[in-house]
Structure formats: structure tokens, C-alpha cells
């Protein structure tokens, strides 16, 4: 069974202009050992999907009309705040885009990591390798040792010294490593990484992505990697879900989806990335604009911009249809577009 399974998740946001339907029936499954890229453009709902899994969307203004988020068989939508808080940091780890704003500048990184470790230990004593009766002092010492060990694991040199440094003493890439170490210190099963390398240089980005891949292999993690960068997906992910305007429009193994995209939006997105073989003027932009999510198009949300749209496309949301093993697309014309 999948570690994480999102079924028909609907989220709307109340605003002055009306209800915006930001997630319109999300289906997604993730297993241990997989890195699933969740890719799409600004405002498509990819971050909200990630935040929904860790239940960090405030309600109100958010409102979940329908849907389930099954994590290890438990429906997270029915858990209360306390139960959810126990999961965060222990079973579900998170890292975000900007490593600078996600560390407290006033505390040593070790101090911040120890906090997380002790929080995790409160839910699961095994994290520190101590018995339930260990004194507070022993726990702190163990948490400190664990912090050093995690920093070493993510490739920070001299972790015994660095653990006492402040965030500003680390470079951007090193800070992101600290955040990854902190997210993994409670030994989570699921890591949600929201644009983890967007603020970094390409060589540092490649190192961080390699690190994530190694950690997945070593710890049997499942990773949901949220990004707008198709190149990052190609570099590190095993699977990919493509989002457009609150829907998953295509889903499958990375190689299959990128080689033969079956949804016209995926095709368009891939055509907009500057690539080696392209000559002058050959880059294809996408005509039109993203639909208004308060009054979305009645049928397929991509229909107004789609070069293949026909009358029938306006008649209701196309479901994700399985095309071949491990590859599905939400387009009624998918059968006509033989690869």
C-alpha cells in the first residue's frame, strides 16, 4: 500500500471576490523509496497540496469540501491538531524554498536541531536511542550527539564545531543542508520538499539533489518534491505529477512522461524550456493566461488555452485516465494522440 495517498482532494479559499477553487480533486500516491515531483507554474496549487499533507493550510480561509489524505492508512483530514502536531517532524518532515528565512538567526543551528529532536523524542523515544526513563539531561546530550551525526550525514564538514555556529555563518547551500538535517532528525517516513533548490546555484543544486537521492536510498524515505523546474524533476525524481490550475493533468514515471507527454499542457510546458537543440525563435511560449479560479472554465481547465480543444472539452472535468502502466493523463483526446 502506498505510504501517502491523496484522494479527490478539494480545497477552496474564501476571498473578497468569492470562493477560489484552488485544489479541484487532487489524486496522488507516493510510496517509500520514490521521489515524486509535483510540478506546475505559479498559482497552480502545488504548494497548497504539500501544505495540505502537513495540514498547514489555515481553515478558514481554506475550506476542504471533499477528499482524503491517507498517510500510512490514517486519514489526516480527520485528525485533530494535537495528533497532527505529533506527526509533523516525526513522521512527516518538511523543507522549504528559502533556507535563510527558515532558520532562526538568533539561535545556534545545533540548538534549533536539538529542539526538533526533543520534540520527536516526545512522540517516539527511539529517536534518541534512550529508554523512556532517561533524564532530561541525558536526552539533551543524546539530542546534541544526534544533531552532530545528522550534520555529518548531510555532508557538513567538522560537524562537532559547526553545530555551535549561527545560521549566518553558513552559505546558502550549507543552510539548505542544515534544514534537510533538521527535517530528517526525527526520522520521518515522508519528506515534503517545497522548491528546496530554487534559491541555490546550479552546482550547489546538483549536490543537494544528489544528497536527497542518497538519503532516500539509505533511509527508505518517500519524497514529495514540489518545483516549477522540469530540469530538477528530470535530475532527481522517479515519478512526476503535472499540475495545472488546481488539477493533476498528467501523472507517471518521469522517463515516460517527459519522453512522450500525453497531456497538451505537459507538451506545452516542455516546449517552453530552453533546450540544447533549439534555434533562434524556436522556443514556444504558452498563449493565453491561467484561468480565474473563482469562475473556472466549466470543463477541462486547460481548454481555453488548449490547441486541441473541441466542443466536448467544455462538458465537465476529464478524469485522470490510465494510458499505459504507470502513466495517466486527464484529457479526453488522449486516445487520438497516439505516441
Amino acid at each position, binding site marked *: 500500500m502506498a505510504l501517502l495517498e491523496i484522494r479527490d482532494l478539494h480545497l477552496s479559499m474564501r476571498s473578497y471576490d468569492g470562493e477560489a477553487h484552488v485544489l479541484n480533486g487532487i489524486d496522488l500516491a507516493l510510496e517509500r523509496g520514490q521521489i515524486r515531483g509535483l510540478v506546475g507554474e505559479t498559482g497552480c496549487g502545488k504548494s497548497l497540496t504539500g501544505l495540505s499533507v502537513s495540514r498547514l493550510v489555515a481553515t478558514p480561509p481554506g475550506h476542504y469540501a471533499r477528499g482524503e489524505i491517507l498517510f500510512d492508512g490514517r486519514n489526516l483530514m480527520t485528525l485533530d491538531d494535537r495528533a497532527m502536531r505529533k506527526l509533523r517532524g516525526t513522521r512527516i518532515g518538511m523543507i522549504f524554498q528559502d533556507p535563510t528565512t527558515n532558520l532562526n538567526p538568533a539561535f545556534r543551528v545545533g540548538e534549533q536541531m536539538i529542539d526538533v529532536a526533543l520534540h520527536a523524542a516526545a512522540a517516539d523515544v527511539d529517536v534518541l536511542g534512550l529508554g523512556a526513563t532517561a533524564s532530561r539531561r541525558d536526552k539533551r546530550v543524546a539530542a546534541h550527539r544526534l544533531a552532530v551525526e545528522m550534520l555529518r550525514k548531510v555532508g557538513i564538514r567538522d560537524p562537532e564545531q559547526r553545530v555551535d555556529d549561527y545560521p549566518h555563518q553558513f552559505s546558502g547551500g550549507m543552510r539548505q543542508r542544515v534544514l534537510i538535517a533538521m527535517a530528517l532528525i526525527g526520522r520521518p517516513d515522508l519528506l515534503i520538499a517545497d522548491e528546496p533548490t530554487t534559491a541555490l546555484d546550479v552546482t550547489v543544486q*546538483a549536490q543537494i539533489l544528489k544528497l536527497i537521492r542518497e538519503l532516500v536510498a539509505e533511509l527508505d524515505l518517500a519524497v514529495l518534491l514540489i518545483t516549477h523546474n522540469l530540469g530538477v524533476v*528530470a535530475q532527481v525524481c522517479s515519478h512526476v505529477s503535472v499540475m495545472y490550475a488546481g488539477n493533476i493533468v498528467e501523472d507517471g514515471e518521469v522517463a515516460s512522461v517527459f519522453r512522450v507527454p500525453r497531456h497538451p499542457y505537459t507538451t506545452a510546458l516542455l516546449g517552453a524550456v530552453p533546450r*540544447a537543440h533549439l534555434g533562434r525563435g524556436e522556443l514556444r511560449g504558452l498563449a493565453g493566461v491561467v484561468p480565474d479560479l473563482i469562475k473556472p472554465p466549466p470543463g477541462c481547465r486547460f481548454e481555453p488555452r488548449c490547441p486541441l480543444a473541441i466542443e466536448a472539452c467544455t462538458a465537465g472535468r476529464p478524469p485522470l485516465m490510465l494510458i499505459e502502466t504507470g502513466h495517466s493523463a486527464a484529457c479526453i483526446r488522449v486516445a487520438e494522440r497516439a505516441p
Partner: protein
Amino acid sequence: MTLLAVDKVRKVYRPRKRDGEVVALDDVSLALDAGECLGLVGESGSGKSTLARLILALEAPTSGTISYRGNELTTLPAADLLRLREKMQIVFQDPYASLNPRMTVQDIVAEPLVIHERNRPMSARARRDRVVDLLATVGLKREHLWRFPHEFSGGQRQRICIARALALEPEFLILDEPTSALDVSVQAQVLNMLQDLQQRLKLTYLFISHDLGVIRYMADRVTVMQHGRIVETGATEAVFRAPQTDYAKGLIAASAGSDLDVIASA
């Protein structure tokens, strides 16, 4: 013909006396021919933006010279420098930060014309017409004149920035990461527009980016910088196909776009 020549430029900052000095640029030389697009790549802190600031004469080099059409920037009288500035313009990375939120599009795009009014007198009506022309050039409409920056999307804002940069009919544009803040589909539109403008208005570009795919698409030649030095320069395809230095090789190998090519072509 050489439009811009940077010769053995060194720039040293001394943040605080006791901290010693930071060498931002060290022995940097490059030349730009009229009509070409030179791509400048390198990681954060490699000196790309410092070089842009020196070329625009916003700061003076510690040593070395920069000349535009044979005029050395540091020795130029202020009045001549002002005239020269009409010819050199810049578009910045973040269209959310580089437009004044309290000005209308009309005022933003007209501002260079107002600043340089002494050199090019213009009636208010003529100025308005020029702004409308400029907006049309970048694909915006007359009805946008009275709107404020927050009413536009990222791609539209970058178009406003480009219209402003074109107001004084420049010959040379520095594009400092002009599409880094944009989505790929919007980036594609802006890049194609920049190529089109370059041809139509006979512009010379210095295109700064950390995205190697974008550089490869835009640039005729490419210069790679590391720690304030130029490590490699050459024709774009030559550098991408057969990088000479280890640093350039590493940079190209690390670029995420190359993995996309590998997967898609397999």
C-alpha cells in the same frame, strides 16, 4: 565593431577596515561587438552584477579601464556621461522590486524621457505618444497607461521594465537575469520578444544569467566567471559542446536542463 571594451578591470571593496578587502573583480577583460549577444554566466558572488554596475558607470573600477565606443567612462565629463547613459540601459531580475508601486505605467515608462529632457526636448503630448509606442513594442496596450504595477502579472511587469529601458532608444542593453523570476511559459514569451527586439532595433545585449539553457538559447558568445575572474570565453555552441576548463565542464554537467535533454532524447 567593438562597442564596449573592458580592459584588465579590478574592483576591490573594503567593507570594514579590519576585515581586509574583497576582490570582486580581478583582471577582467572582455569586448562586445555591436549587434551581438554576449552571455555572462557564473554562480552567485562570481562578480556578474558588479561588472554590470561598472559598465553602467554606477561605480568606478579600482584599476583598469572600461570604454564605450572608445570613450573611457571614468575620465568622461559628467555631461558626456549623461549623454552616454541614454545609449546604455539595464533590465533587472525582479520586476516586483524594480518598479515603483506608487507610479502609473505611464509615469514609469516616461521617467527616462523626463530625466534626459535637456538632451531631447519633448512636449507632453509627444511624450505620451512615445510611451504608447513603447508599450506597443513590448506587447502592451494604451489602456494599460493608467494602471499601477500591482495590477500586472510578472511577465507583464518585466515587459514594462523593458519598455522603460527602450525609452531612450539605447544601443546596448544589460539584461541582468531578466527571466529568473518568471514561469517557463512566460519566460519563453519574454525571451522570444527580446530576440525579436534585438533584431528589429539593432541592439547589443549583455545577458547575465545563471540558467545555462537560457544563455544557450540567447547568446552568440558566452563568458564564464568564477570568483571574480573570467575562466572561459567562446562561441556559445563551442563552449557548451566542448568546455575547456574544469569549472565550465562542472557547471554544464550540473545544469538541470541537460538532464531534461538526456531523458527526452533517449
